[in-house]
């Protein structure tokens, strides 16, 4: 079982040449082989969404994908949202300003989910965003500030 195969991943614009077992999940490969621990594992059965990453722009549960399925795809994680060390992505900034996080464990999943969706649907209204955000679980905030932050970010991103 421990036979590994070489794999090339493109994550946040960087190339990672790694070797993984075929059964290794994308989440584990990102976290342990690429050292990108911002993607979190909250349930490993596809419900909580903490591990959400964008694969070719689409939000995916990285706990439900094998790493080898992401070969040649473009993967974007929470570490790839902010343009630089000084500036946050509008969704990150909005979560900060609206107290959209407490413990911060589910936050990367929500950020990536919302950023991915808003980039494709910049005119999403609140009802639509609630539906989207219901993909993920948060145990700290009661969600209302996550919704508020997401709608603030949507407005900023439209400008």
């Amino acid at each position, binding site marked *: 079982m*421990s036979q590994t195969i070489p794999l090339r991943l493109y994550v946040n614009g960087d190339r990672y040449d790694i070797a993984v077992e075929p059964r290794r999940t994308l989440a584990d490969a990102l976290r342990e082989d690429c050292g990108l621990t911002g993607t979190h594992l909250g349930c490993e059965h596809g419900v909580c969404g903490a591990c959400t990453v964008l694969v070719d722009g689409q939000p995916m549960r990285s706990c439900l994908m094998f790493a080898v399925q992401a070969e040649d795809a473009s993967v974007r994680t929470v*570490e790839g949202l*902010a343009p630089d060390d000084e500036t946050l992505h509008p969704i990150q900034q909005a979560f900060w*300003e609206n107290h959209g996080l*407490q*413990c911060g464990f589910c*936050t990367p999943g929500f950020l990536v989910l919302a950023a991915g969706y808003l980039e494709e649907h910049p005119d999403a209204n609140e009802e639509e965003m609630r539906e989207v955000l219901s993909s993920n*679980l948060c145990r700290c905030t*009661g969600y209302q500030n996550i*919704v508020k932050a997401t709608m603030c970010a949507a407005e900023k991103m439209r400008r």
Partner: protein
Amino acid sequence: MIGARSLRIEDPVLLRGAGRFAADTIRAGELHMRVVRAPIAHGRIVSIDTSQALLLDGVVAAWSYEDIAELPAIGFRLTPREDLLPYRQPVLARRVVRYVGEPVVVVFATSAYIAEDAAELVEIDLEPLPVRIDADDDPVGWIDAEQATWAAGLGRDLPEQDSEATSFIEEYGDVDAAFASGRGHIIEMDARIGRHTGVPMECRGLVAYFDSADQQLIVDGAAKVPFWNRDAIAAINGLTPAQVVVRETHVGGGFGPRGELYPEDILVTIAAMRLRAPIKWIEDRQEHLMATNHSRGQHHTMRALVHDDGFIEALDTSFILDQGAYIRTHGATVASLTASMLPGPYVIPHFRVRAHVRLTHKTPAGTYRSPGRYEGTFARERLVDKIANQLGLTRTQVRRRNFIAVEDMPYERPIEAMGTHLVHDSGDYALLLDKMEAKYDFAGIEAEVAARRGAGEIVGFGFGCFVEKSGIGPVEGAKVSVDASGGVTLTCGASSVGQGVDTVLAQVVSETLGVPHDQIRVVRGRTDQFGYGRGAFATRLAVMAGSAAMMASEELRDKAFRVAAHTMRVSVEELRLVDGRVEVIGSPDDVLTLAQIAGILEPVGAGELKESPGLSAEGWFRSDHMTYPYGVHAAVVRIDGGTGQLVIERFIVGYDVGRALNPMLVEGQIAGGVAQGIGGAVYEEFLYAEDGTPLCTTFMDYLIPTVLEIPDVEILVTEDAPSPINPLGVKGAGEGGTTAVAAAIASAVDDALQRPNAISSVPVRPDLLRKLVIAGPLQTTRPSKPSKTAARRPSTTNKEKS
């Protein structure tokens, strides 16, 4: 600054995914631990075979009880009643397994994947034994004399123990005499609260290694109570506390269960010492749902003696707590808090509660946000609603009639809570209800839902009142220091479970020093950085660590003034501290920055000034009593007559926290607390099959509410009753969002159905609602006749243990 809606200093790191949660500590050469858990709820261990697992490439070790037999059972951190000792949990199952999920074997391997492969190869032969899952059943034999003697560790032989671990009474007044008087109505109520728990989004995890250069055991991934756990880990491993460094890093939610000392934590540290390799254990979600503490799970039987005007003269009550298979670190905490906080905001001159803590073949239970108060508030507020209905009074009338009056504050109830005298430190319960009624127009809401019911909708409004507790002592400390570049650091024994404590403590320091809060570095949760810390539980840190931080800041300010006065040749009274600079009043050009003063206080200079080196100071805050915040929860609910679906249209919280150090964070705590309360009231429950098999071990079966189930909570934070027992006047905000959620929702559902007392248990499930909708409304308000049998004791089938 205190009171500002300051943005959190924790967030930039977390938003970039740069945090360090338990699983994010990755060490070269680490071994991964995997726990093999009991597959049945009760059985005798016949044999354990790890040989196939050990043959697997990459597997380093596999242990069962025999390999760790020298370890004692896990101790109590709180409420350590001696009669509970025989029920303590062994680190690995000892001869018998008692719940599905109990650790039986651990394997260690070079990768998490291999460790899981190996775990599947471990063979455990079990002989099934009879299973008990209903705590209401009369107690039966639970553990034999040998196990009881071993687990208690008292050095003397104990007899066999039954499944009622403890039973105790809290009381004041003369309940029997009150009931014997025969004056008043007897009103009885039965209430049940389902078994559910905190379920933080991050599962548990721990990474430990022995640093052979420093001769220290380093433990990363701790939470909540790192100092207590450090001492326990040191003792178990034969090390001094100074040789053990416990660090909490980031914590993905606490809520009570996370951070307690569990069997897995001990195994990780033992393995790090024995195998001399970094050991990593990361719990998966299925394990979490059957291994981490459950909570709630209570059945209350209440009987009240009530005057015509709704005044509760006496309350005689008992409850059964479904403890699960062992008693863990919390000891009798939940039962004790349930008992002592049961009277809530009401006077109730005569009160008696009998607690029964019963063992069942389920996951052991501990605390969860608002432990004992969520349960007790549900039971009590259901009873109060019943009193109102039965006497033909309004729900607010009965509550107002019973509130402790503001003139009677501080109000001592002659019982204890968490080992402290229960003294309501301040509060104006009637005023908060007034404010809520006015601000949210309760009368208007009631008229509106009545009109909608008239139009055929099944909608209702309900509410509940409660008292919380917070800020338990006995002590917390903090050290503030300023370096020669002006950098300010607060070091303390506090812990963060994600609630924003860094920000709040920084605000407190900022208030005194005038340095922006986001330029203050907060160090906490690390046993190598501070001497003492009691932990993040019981909503205690704003009160305890906040007060300590304030005292330390003021000490530092005074020291800076002494140095500045000497240097600028003025008196201390002529100085003021503005924006991190000490200036002479009326002469703002005569100024020394804190950085300059820190420079002066480098050891040589400090010696000349007869000051201790460095611009730093400590503060220690002691408290013998808790603070008691209080609140009102209200809900508007709608029921779908076709499916029984319950929709919470509005949820409103009024909460007095004495002083809101950061209103944005207070509101965040409340909103999050409400969501968890809604989970327990409507969606979340650990169900078990007859044979003790847990039926909710994934998020497909254990339903955590999503954004679609949680309304935007409307919040009124008041500061009408500052606490007189700490310098900030603050009371904790962490739990009051949760406390009365089940009570308010049940009250609203009754109203929607127009069936008084329809809801006596939570979670309120659609199948019950559907049945009740079909059954239709009941006639309300049937005043009861004064009872002639007032002297009867509460009807209970429980065997009482003296």
